[in-house]
Structure formats: C-alpha cells, structure tokens
C-alpha cells in the first residue's frame, strides 16, 4: 500500500520551510516529490532598486549561514563588469573570510548531521568548537554573522596584524579538534552503519543533475570553482580538492571534514603571505555591460550575474544558489531507502532554502506563480482577512 509521509512544510528535520512528499510502501521510499517555494523574498527585484554599493548588504541577507558567499560572488560580478581588480591585500582578506566561513558552515552541517541521526552529543560538541570562530568573526568584523567584508573593488575592513595570532590560535585548536572529530566519526561502527552505502548518488546522476560543491565531490565529480576558475588568492596558495568516489552520505561527510583541514591550510598560508598595501581601489562608476561572479560557497558554486546601463543601480541581477541544484538530486538519491535513511539523505546535501527560494514557484515543471503573482495573492489574502474582520 502506498502512503505519503510528509517532510515539511514545517518539520523538525529541517528548520526551514520545504516540502518533501515521501511516497512510501511500508518503510521503503518509492518516490519523492519536491515542492519548494515557501520562502519568496524578491531579492533580485529589490536589488534592482538599490545602488551598487547597497546591494552587498542586501545579498548578504539572502542567507544567514553563507552570508559571505553571496556578497563575494556579487562583488566579483561587478568587478568583472567594471574591469577592475581588488588590490592584493583585499584579495587575501576576502579569501581568508571565505575559508573561515566554509569551516563554520561545514561544522554547522556536521553538528546537524549528528542531530539527524539522533547523536546529540556530536551536535553539541561540534557546535562548541564552532563557537570561538563566531567570536573571531565578531572580533574582526564586528558581527558574528553578516560580516559585511566585501565591497566593490576591495574589502571594507582590514584584518589587523595584532589579530593574526588570535586567528592562528583558533586554527591550532581547530586542527586538533577536526582530527578528533574525523577519527571519532569514521571509527564509530554505529555511525558507519547508519551512513555507509546510504543515499548513493552516482557520478552520472551527479553530472545529470548538475550538482555542485561537496555533494558533487562526494560522488566523484571533481568540480570546484576555486580550482576550475581561480579568483582572488586561491591560485596563490597550495591546497587540494577533496574528492571521494562513493557518493553515499559518509562520503559527503568525509569531503566536508577533510575540506576543513584544507581551509585551515589556506587561511594559514594567506596569513603568512599577506601583502601590505591598500585594501580597496576607488570605483567611480560602473560602465554599461554585464559581468558574472562565481564563488565556491560551502554548499557549492554560487553564481551572480549583473547587467549595468551605466547608472548607479544594476538593471538586472540574477542569483543562482547551490542548494537549488543540489536539492533536486534527492529524487534519485533517496529512492529505495527507508524513511529513516531518507531523513539523512535529504539533509546530506546541506540544503539552504533561504538561498534557493527567492524566485518563482514551479510545480511539476510548470511555472505556478511569479513574484508578482505571489504579491497579488498576498494582497488578496490581506483584503480577505480585513473583510472577514469587518475592517
């Protein structure tokens, strides 16, 4: 007998609104329908009503976890459009913050993954060692989140030389703890029993669904914007791309854990080789034209496109978030596994709905609502509620 087990729109598994309709026979998942679009905020439209320099503060609020990735990709896009490059010191600063953000995002996922398999001790311990990183962010940029470090033509804040030892000290701590977590998680037989050979996404499927980031690298598909199309300081430091062939949840966990080590390596080298000099170039105007910016966010490639007509606002700004690509691959990854595994597999792509859902609502391949339609629906509903209460 086929039954529907709903995961979402509100579910303790994932705190953001999403709807996975698991079609199950007994405990086995035979099909999956993905319905997203509960979180429309119209960022691309708002961005066209702001000046070039205001947009980073907006796109940073697309997502609270990767709040460096979106402004990073945006400034790269605008710099591409205006044919400028940031001064070397600014490039290093942006790279450092981008990598520190990757560590905090991967640790967030790792903790949640522990929570999803009912291992709350992992959750609390991992987040305990993520906490000093947020303090570090506050020290450098004044905010635990929403760092506002990216600026067109450079960085908004310098990393002071007296802060280097503090960053180094944290990296030393993290290196030890990351080794501890890697060993603890890979050696635990019960964790392996839950993660190994679960939710396998083959390399062919990974390419067919165009997944990005750790989801792709865990399936043996080597793609990383930092290597494929290096920007800022990424080609000036020595690091490795982490790829595992298995494609199961354990491989994705391994990619993320070992990537943290690589991030530590990158930040250390950046701090060592940090050049002196200005942290921004003066940008007077953005000439007409278009530009793209790609940044390897913790979840995969984040892509920004801007078009300028020479005025002080973008005439078009398009964002493509990695989770938008990754979530769709769940359809193949989850089939044939049990409900218990499904919860894990759905979370293994590290979905981020606030990144993904700024656009239109599609259902079964057809456009259901556009941004304007949703706005109209919302007005209608407000009118209806007003009428009902006689106001």
């Amino acid at each position, binding site marked *: 007998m086929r039954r529907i087990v709903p995961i979402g729109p509100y579910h303790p598994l994932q705190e953001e609104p999403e709807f996975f309709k698991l079609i199950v026979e007994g*405990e086995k998942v035979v099909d999956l329908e993905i319905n997203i679009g509960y979180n429309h905020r119209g960022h691309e439209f708002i961005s066209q009503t702001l000046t070039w320099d205001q947009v980073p503060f907006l796109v940073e609020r697309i997502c609270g976890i990767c709040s460096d990735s979106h402004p990073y990709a945006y400034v790269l896009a605008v710099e591409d459009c205006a044919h400028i490059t940031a001064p070397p010191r600014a490039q290093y600063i942006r790279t450092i913050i981008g990598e520190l953000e990757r560590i905090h995002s991967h640790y967030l996922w790792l903790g949640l993954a522990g*929570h999803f398999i009912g291992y709350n001790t*992992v959750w609390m311990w991992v987040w305990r060692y993520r906490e000093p990183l947020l303090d570090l962010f506050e020290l450098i940029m004044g905010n635990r989140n929403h760092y506002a470090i990216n600026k067109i033509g450079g960085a908004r804040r310098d990393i002071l030389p007296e802060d280097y030892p503090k960053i180094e000290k944290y990296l030393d701590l993290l290196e030890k703890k990351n080794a501890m977590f890697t060993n603890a998680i890979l050696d635990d037989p019960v964790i392996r029993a839950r993660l190994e050979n679960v939710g396998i996404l083959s390399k062919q499927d990974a390419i067919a669904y165009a997944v990005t980031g750790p989801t792709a690298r865990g399936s043996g598909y080597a793609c990383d914007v930092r290597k494929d199309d290096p920007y800022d300081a990424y080609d000036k430091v020595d690091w490795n791309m982490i790829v595992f062939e298995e494609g199961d949840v354990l491989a994705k966990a391994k990619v993320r854990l070992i990537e943290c080590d690589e991030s530590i390596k990158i930040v250390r080298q950046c701090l060592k080789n940090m050049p002196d000099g200005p942290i921004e170039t003066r940008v007077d105007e953005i000439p007409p034209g278009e530009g793209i910016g790609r940044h390897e966010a913790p979840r995969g490639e984040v892509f920004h496109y801007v078009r300028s007509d020479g005025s002080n606002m973008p005439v078009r700004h398009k964002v493509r978030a990695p989770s938008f690509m990754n979530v769709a691959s769940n359809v193949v990854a989850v089939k044939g596994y049990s409900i218990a595994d499904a919860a894990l597999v759905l979370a293994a792509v590290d979905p981020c709905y606030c990144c993904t859902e700024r656009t239109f609502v599609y259902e079964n391949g057809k456009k259901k609502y556009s941004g304007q339609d949703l706005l109209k629906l919302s007005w209608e509903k407000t009118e209806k509620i007003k009428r009902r209460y006689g106001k």
Partner: protein
Amino acid sequence: MNIVRILFSYVIFPGFIFTAVVGLFLTWIDRKVTARIHWRVGPPWFQPYADFLKLLLKETIIPEGSSKTLFLLGPLLGLIGMSIFAVMLFNMNFNPSGSFVGDLIVIIYLLALPPIGIIIGGSASKNPLASVGASREMTQYFAYELPFLIALVSIIIKAGGSVKFGEIILAQQAQGPFLYSISGVIAGVVIFLCIQAKLSFVPFDIPEAEQEIMAGPYIEYSGVTLAIYKMTRAMMLLLLPLFLISVLWGGFANWWAILKLLLIVVLIILVKNTNPRLRIDQALKFFWIGIGALSIIGLVLAFYGL
C-alpha cells in the same frame, strides 16, 4: 482497613505517586547528566515536575476521525501496568517470603503493557507518522522481547527452577547475587540493553525518532494524555533498573541499592549519549542475531551452573 491498605499501596506507596515522583526525579538526573556531557548547564531539579504540571494544564486534543476510546486507552494501559508492577516489585523485595503471589510471568506481561499502549494509541491517532511509529514500536518490541525472555529463563534456572519472584530474591540472599557469575554478567548485559530499548532511549529510540517521524506515536497526543505517557516513561526509568537489581543484583531492600540504581541509570544515560540512532532493521538484527546469540550462550552456561 485492608482495602485502605491495598489502595494506599497501589496509589501512594509504592504504587503510582511514589514511583512517579522518584521517576520524574530520575528524568532530571537524565537531563542534567546529558546536559553536562553536551557542555550545557541543564535544567534545575524541579524542571520535570514543572513540565508535568504544565502539560496537565494544557488542552487535550483528540484528533478528528480517530477512535476515541482506543486513543485514550493507550496512555492509561502503560500507566496501570507500571503502577501494578511497582507494587509487586516493592512487595517482593521487602517481603520476599510473604504469601503475595508475584511470579516472573505476570511481570513479563505487565512489562508488555506500555509498548502495547503506545501501539494502540499510535494506531488510533489516524496519522501516517503515528502509524509508522506504531509499526516500528511493534517491530522493536518483538526484537528485544526474545533475548529478554531467554535471559530471564537463565535467571530462573539459576534460582533453581522457580518462577516466583520472592524465591529468586531469597536464592540470591542465600548464595550471593547472580550477577557475580559469567552467565549472570551475560544476562545483565542482555537485560540492560533490553531496558535501553524498553525505555526507547538512543540507540533504540527508533519508534519516536524526532527527526524522521516527529515523535511517531505521540504526535497527536497533547495535554493530560501526553503527560501520562511521559510519566509512564519516567516510572519505567525507575522501575526497570530496580527490576534488574532485584533479579540479578540481590534485591533492593538495603541502602546500597540506591547507589546501584544510580549507577545503572547513569550507565543508561551514557549509552544514550554516546550512540547514534539505529535503523529499525539494524535494531532487529542486533537483538535477534547478536544479543540473541549472547543470551543463548548465557542460558547454556547457566544450565551448567557457571
């Protein structure tokens, strides 16, 4: 007079109210120790009582279209079972040579009542997640019951073939606790793991996996009914370790028993906090193949008097 005494023993001591109060205190120990393991602070000692009172004051919602009688019977069954179990356990420990008839077989049936209550309640809720949870509870019950029974049989053999609870305790008073032998240790490990599963603690919290099926059978329960479920679980946290002490560790009619109880409870909490949740098929394999084989080895050893 006699009726008053019987009522007193069932409702106040050692029945319902006493076990509930001490059991809720043990859930505080659970929460506090768990919190310390997690580097958190943890709640104050009265938190479980406050939670319980809050639930009593909340509205009880019965889902539309559910079977009302069965929905309300679910929580009650477990509570009744545990109250009777408490009276039998205490009577047998403090008066093992008395005429009170309490044998192991009755206790096995009483211990089956809470899972049956959960299965009935979950199935009556008319919720797909609750019925998935109920079917998981059923599978898990069949998984852990087999090694549990085999371990109890090995204890019966050690007690000289008596199924009377009092005689098991008397035999231990005469020849020392059963735990101090190889087969006793094996039976202890098996019963300990079955207790973990009976309490639905990680790694066997499969029926109510919050991240998968949102508390499963409990999903539609609220207010008083949910409070009763929670309290039954708290009572089990007291009674099941006491049961382990009385069948293997020489009974609890002395002050050392408090330390033994705390030791077992803390062990349960440690196992809970150092393991992820298993899948239901893995739990079934674990109990039937791994723990089942272990319990049979224990049975054979007990037969040869080791």
